């Protein structure tokens, strides 16, 4: 299934085996049933960083199962005012 992926605030795809290596905005084809947590591992994002995941404008946890054509925005801890 196709996902629209956006990585923010310095996060990038760290998996050199993916065509999106080094990018922060890309589409990706993943197996059906992939969860948010599995996507993160696939993108090889530093596992020590606490992440915020927004799937189709909703916060979702790592065990959320992604669907075809989902848009995922992933953020490290950020703040402002």
């Amino acid at each position, binding site marked *: 299934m196709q996902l629209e992926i956006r990585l923010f605030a310095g996060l990038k795809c760290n998996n050199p085996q993916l065509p999106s290596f080094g990018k922060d905005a890309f589409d990706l084809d993943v197996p059906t049933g992939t969860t948010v947590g599995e996507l993160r591992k696939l993108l090889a994002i530093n596992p020590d960083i606490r992440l915020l995941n*927004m799937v189709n*404008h909703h*916060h979702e946890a790592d065990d959320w199962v992604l669907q075809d054509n989902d848009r995922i925005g992933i953020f*490290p*801890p*950020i*703040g402002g005012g």
Partner: protein
Amino acid sequence: MDKILRIDMGAANGPKMTVEPVGEYAGLGGRALTSIVVAKEVPPLCHPLGAENKLVFAPGMLSGTAGAMTGRLSVGCKSPLTGTIKESNAGGQAAQVMARLGYAAMILEGNPAGDDLYKIYINKDGVKIEIDNSLKLLDNYPLVERLRQEYGDKVAYITIGSAGERKLLAASIACTDPQLRPTRHCGRGGVGAVMGVKCVKAIILDDAGMKMRPPVDPEKYRDANRKFVEGLRRHPVSGEALPAYGTNVLTNILNEAGGYPTYNFKQGQFSGSANLSGEAQAQLEVKRGGTATHGCHRGCVIQCSGIYNDKDGHYLTKQPEYETVWSHGGHCGIDDLDTVARLDFMDDNIGVDTIDMGVTIGVAMDAGIIPFGDREGAIRLMEEVGKGTPLGRILGCGAEITGKVFGVERVPVVKGQALPAYDPRAVQGIGVTYATSTQGADHTAGYAIATNILKVGGDVDPLKPEGQVELSRNLQIATAAIDSTGMCLFIAFAIMDQPETFQALLDMLNAFYGANMTADDVVELGKKVLSVERDFNKRAGFTAQHDRLPRYFYTEPVAPHNLTFNVKDEELDQVFNW
């Protein structure tokens, strides 16, 4: 900080000053001091531009010490914009210097009879108040340049631009940063108009010969400060995201969350948001020889500010904040950072609240004065404000007045103050703060975004009404306390998530004052400040009916979530029941 400086600007033979012991206000600072003074000494039914109003400047409890993050100055009065009590605070150097000069507060009272303009110079030897009509209608940047020729570079300047002199309701009070740029503003509530009606153009603070304020227990203070700084550096928000990107890092997440108010709160996402993002801004700043990491006051370790140069590498403005990039950007359908930066410079120079000014321009767009997305048009409208033309005066008095003059139904204000950069229908917790805060629509007063969107200090679903009242209440209490310490509010991320960092802050307060405050005492301080403010507002005529959002937030859903504001009135009325 054992003394209070009072200046009666309306005294018969010219401004009369008295210096008195701090007395009953001892131990208070920042917002606690300004609100308690205003509540005690200003008749709540007075006209805010009248002689009965007072303008209270107060550094925080820990300002002027060697502690980190202590540079916030609070300014309090009855607000000419909202009619409520007002506390508006800013960074910059003024708080540090005023505190080291020994003043817990400076209180401007009365209004002069004529139209002479005054500057007030304060150093270790005393206070000089002089007429200087050559400063009339100078905007903040040229004003500070002029004053530097007389007072030099080792002072802090507090000034108003032409907007304050014209008594525009969006007028701000500017404080200079360590590089003497007038870029840190007490923005909200028209406090600049009160300084203007009292005919004070500039306050120059010179602490030459003064020392850092000494703690009762210097070793404990140093130790607590070290732990506090370590905690700030360790937290990813204060230690990484804010120094790297500044507050505008929020553009992408609010847009992704569907809570980024666009085209005057018509939708929750903006197609141009990527062009306005903090990431894009930081990259551009560095490329042009500016910086994305800069502290607005000495002692800041978070360094969330920056320097924005133009395409030729010349200084244009300080790094625009998220609120500015939103109000002049997505709110107006403008997706160009250079335009936003230009408007930010104009806000700082003319001396107006960047939130109210941007929201007003968006309301003017909704009225058809210029189209949404019109970059040059937005700049032209700001130029009108700077010139004080009739249109400029209307716009400079904020969104509510502009909306009334031009027949706009959807005007995003509470108690006359414009909503900041978060749609309450998609972030219900901030809607509770907007509606109920004593300050009018205000985001910092109880920053529910932290927990609704950023998942700091817990997790409350932004799209549901459950949990929002408790969240807003707790944050409003905590913020009222932090606003009294002189600490920058951005310590909140670390102290909410890391108990040891909150303890370090308590230890700093206790080591400095030789006290034994507990977390409960901090809560009590926050509650006391809010109670005093609520009481003032009640006596000024405010009722529960004023603690509501504009009607259309209840009736018009906003995409992409297609929700209205769902927290019930009866629940809003519980925020201050503790």
